[in-house]
């Protein structure tokens, strides 16, 4: 019998049925435009503001500090370009890490073309930034530091609070991409000294096409979408009410279940990691053993290539992902894995397994049963090593 086991929650999550239920009235019945003066519009406006409170609560922000956007990519673009253009009279220097998501890397490259200076900080073998490096890199012209919270690939969690403190002391704006961590680990933007934070609904059992950017009150930022002036004039576009209702409902559920779910996930994740490393020779963990997202495991297997592992698993009904070049459109291995010091040939053999709300012990056991067989089979075909 063919299985259907989803272990790629870091890529996207199914929408929680409770979220779907909350969204349904907002398609055909409560469909109003928040900008309209009539009751249809005012009903939409009210639910928008109620939702804003819920999303703000989960990161300990104020409701007027939440700007809804269409995706985490958009939030990250708005953070970088918006801060850059609003503060260019102060300076044109921006600091990011070498393990940021493509949307930060590409936005930085674009800003470089517009005359901004980008410093890309290295990470250690676990993917960790040294906060001291940030301290040293900040100069008079620095207007923004943007560091990812939890790595989408290797799961490493950065010392955000410490980094935020440094930026606050130096008077530099601090942005973090929390797409993978929001809803999974507690976030307190005040305690963590965060000025801007990107979060995404579809990584936490909400719908796709909705995300937000937290912008601390008083932050100087320019919009990148101009028009009707929605979202405190920072993001003109008709409000996606059903999406926002779904995002808020997803936050409510995470708020309630974050502790319990985190504990369950860490237990499953640690079992998965220990058994894989024990059962499979020449296998390694990418990322930090402890400072990592509760649901992320990222492995590396010598002598074989990641796409082959992913497809073998897919044929057995298990969905995972890889940072191998062969699976990417650019035919380049993941820049995150390379930044941790892996060689190209090592990065090719990587496998990301990410767990979620509906992952069971049984799923993990089945995965642990078939993975060693697949690795063995592919190694048998490989010219590099026999008889593992």
């Amino acid at each position: 019998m063919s299985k259907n086991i989803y272990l790629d929650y870091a890529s996207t999550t199914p929408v929680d049925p409770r979220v779907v239920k909350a969204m349904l009235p907002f398609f055909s019945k409560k469909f109003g435009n928040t900008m309209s003066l009539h009751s249809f519009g005012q009903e939409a406006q009210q639910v928008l503001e109620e939702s804003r409170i819920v999303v703000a609560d989960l990161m300990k922000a104020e409701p007027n500090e939440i700007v809804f956007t269409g995706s985490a990519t958009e939030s990250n673009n708005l953070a970088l370009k918006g801060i850059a253009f609003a503060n260019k009279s102060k300076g044109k220097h921006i600091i990011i890490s070498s393990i940021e998501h493509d949307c930060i890397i590409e936005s930085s490259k674009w800003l470089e073309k517009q005359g901004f200076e980008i410093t890309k900080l290295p990470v250690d073998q676990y993917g960790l930034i040294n906060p001291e490096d940030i301290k040293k890199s900040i100069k008079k012209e620095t207007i923004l530091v943007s560091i990812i919270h939890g790595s989408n690939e290797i799961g490493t969690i950065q010392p955000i609070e410490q980094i935020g403190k440094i930026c606050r002391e130096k008077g530099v704006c601090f942005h973090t991409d929390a797409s993978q961590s929001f809803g999974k680990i507690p976030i307190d933007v005040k305690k963590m000294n965060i000025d801007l934070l990107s979060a995404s609904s579809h990584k936490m059992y909400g719908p796709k096409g909705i995300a937000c950017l937290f912008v601390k009150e008083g932050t100087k930022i320019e919009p990148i979408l101009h028009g009707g002036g929605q979202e405190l004039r920072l993001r003109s576009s008709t409000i996606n009410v059903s999406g926002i209702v779904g995002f808020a409902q997803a936050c409510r559920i995470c708020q309630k279940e974050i502790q319990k779910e985190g504990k369950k996930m860490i237990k499953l994740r640690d079992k998965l990691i220990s058994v894989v490393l024990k059962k499979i020779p020449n296998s390694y963990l990418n990322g930090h053993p402890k400072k990592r997202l509760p649901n992320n495991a990222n492995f590396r297997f010598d002598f074989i290539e990641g796409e082959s592992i992913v497809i073998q698993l897919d044929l057995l009904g298990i969905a995972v992902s890889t940072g191998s070049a062969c699976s990417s459109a650019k035919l380049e291995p993941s820049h995150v894995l390379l930044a941790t010091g892996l060689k190209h040939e090592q990065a090719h053999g990587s496998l990301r397994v990410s767990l979620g709300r509906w992952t069971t012990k049984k799923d993990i056991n089945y995965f642990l049963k078939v993975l060693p067989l697949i690795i063995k089979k592919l190694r048998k075909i490989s010219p590099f090593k026999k008889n593992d």
Partner: protein
Amino acid sequence: MTKIISKAGSYNQKVVKCFKNPKNYGQIKNPDGVGEVGNPVCGDVMKLYIKVAKNKKGEEIVKDIKFETFGCVAAIATSSILTQIAKGKTLKEALKIDNKKIIKSLGGLPPIKVHCSVLAANALKKAIGDYYSRNDSKKNE
């Protein structure tokens, strides 16, 4: 609607089948020719082993052929189909197998994976070349 066996970067069913159940993989002891192509840095390495014999007409043929491949689905599938095409062919015929022939036998490859078929064709040419050069040096001894 076509049934998706595996989305796998849009590989077709034949490619997936060749990948899932590859033929002729492993080593040949005391091969008559070996061809290795690719580079682990790029993510593809293919190693082909051939055994050469003569047919009734006295022509040299690929009597046995095996492969070892480090690489993606396309790399493994093209290696496997290549060994199936080449087995039993005269060396002259085998040298004519190009990547177009390999792609055709697989019913197509995603454009980004065409280089795997080029690698496979080159591996065979290299293995046969190795056989010829070994023979030449034997003759010269």
